[in-house]
């Protein structure tokens, strides 16, 4: 039976966390993942304090297991969502899109375990020094905002840099990914893309079908020019964005304006042409809709089988 120190740290059954995907990771998905023995995460995204509080209260109705909130540090409402997390005594806070150190003392005082997403070993070391309970080393295979390094190189280097638990993310959808992550030194995984097609995920069916139909080469990265590279499925929107990005007659403001509202159009409206379908490179490996419980069981039993059979390589 697969147990790691992440299970102990977060009081969860399986070492699987669900990523805080904007518009996708709501109370329903987070509660379903937690009820299935993983750690569900509500995306704070650009919600204001009361919108986030409503999601937290809903998740508390749906599960009595621990769940977390992801704080998007570039949000204009980050101060108030940070405060709501303390008030609601959320057991786990993950952070993305920046350096969370200015909030960490308050979260720790409120009893939250703080687990920043880090794109480099130095940032991992910095948040460890400020009291992080663990870090998520997220490679550029991921969907959404990404760093430069990829999972295979990032995870072991972060593991060497810190002594707190490391969770691997980016390109992980199944037991192969979990087993590999453990071999790289991580003690668990965070997955986003695979949970998009979960039965309990409220994302538009068009998004789910697009993930299920994706092949290995069906994502692209845009936004490097704006300093915020972002991986999404190829469609009219992302291809046009990529073209505009290399057109120097298009200003950064025009680019930002073109992208405004595109996430919501994808996830909520299922707008195949003008939506931005944030998704990892591993979409091509996601072939079936299933419940969060079945997803987690598939990942864990797959990893157990691989790890159990690993001695075949030793002669």
């Amino acid at each position, binding site marked *: 039976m697969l147990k790691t120190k992440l299970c102990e740290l977060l009081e969860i059954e399986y070492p699987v966390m669900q990523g805080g995907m904007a518009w996708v990771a709501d109370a329903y998905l987070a509660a379903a993942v937690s009820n299935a023995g993983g750690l569900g995460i509500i995306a704070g995204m650009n919600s204001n304090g009361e919108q986030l509080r409503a999601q937290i209260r809903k998740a508390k109705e749906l599960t009595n297991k621990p769940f977390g909130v992801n704080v998007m540090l570039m949000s204009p409402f980050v101060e108030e969502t940070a405060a709501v997390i303390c008030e609601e005594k959320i057991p786990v806070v993950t952070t993305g899109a920046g350096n969370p150190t200015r909030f960490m003392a308050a979260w720790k005082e409120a009893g939250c375990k703080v687990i920043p997403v880090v794109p480099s070993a130095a*940032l991992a*070391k910095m948040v460890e020094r400020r009291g992080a309970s663990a870090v998520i080393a997220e490679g550029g295979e991921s969907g959404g905002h990404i760093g430069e390094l990829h999972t295979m190189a990032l995870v072991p280097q972060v593991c060497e840099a810190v002594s707190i638990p490391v969770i691997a993310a980016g390109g992980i959808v199944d037991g192969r990914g979990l087993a590999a992550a453990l071999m790289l030194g991580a003690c668990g995984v965070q997955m986003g893309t695979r949970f998009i097609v979960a039965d309990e995920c409220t994302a538009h069916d068009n998004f789910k079908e697009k993930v299920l139909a994706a092949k290995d080469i069906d994502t692209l990265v845009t936004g490097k020019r704006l300093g915020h590279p972002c991986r999404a499925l190829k469609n009219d929107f992302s291809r046009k964005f990529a073209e505009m990005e290399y057109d120097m007659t298009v200003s950064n403001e025009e680019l930002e304006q073109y992208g405004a509202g595109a996430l919501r159009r994808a996830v909520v409206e299922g707008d195949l042409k003008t939506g931005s379908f944030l998704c990892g490179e591993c979409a091509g490996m996601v072939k079936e809709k299933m419940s969060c419980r079945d997803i987690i069981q598939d990942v864990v039993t797959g990893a157990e089988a691989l790890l159990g059979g690993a001695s075949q390589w030793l002669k």
Partner: protein
Amino acid sequence: MKEKIVDIIAAYKGVDASEIATDKSFADIGLDSLDVAELVMQIEDACEVEIDITPELNCIDKLVEYIESK
């Protein structure tokens, strides 16, 4: 203190210390946020000080002032 920090940053960038402008923003001297995180860790170790990096601490002069005030 300032000299020590300039030396760390010059070594990191692989340039001579005289080429490092202490009043220009980190971005303007070619350092992104991940470079700054790496350098802050090196400076913390070298100066035995904890640096709470904020957007306001955006150049060497301000960083030195911050460390000296601690």
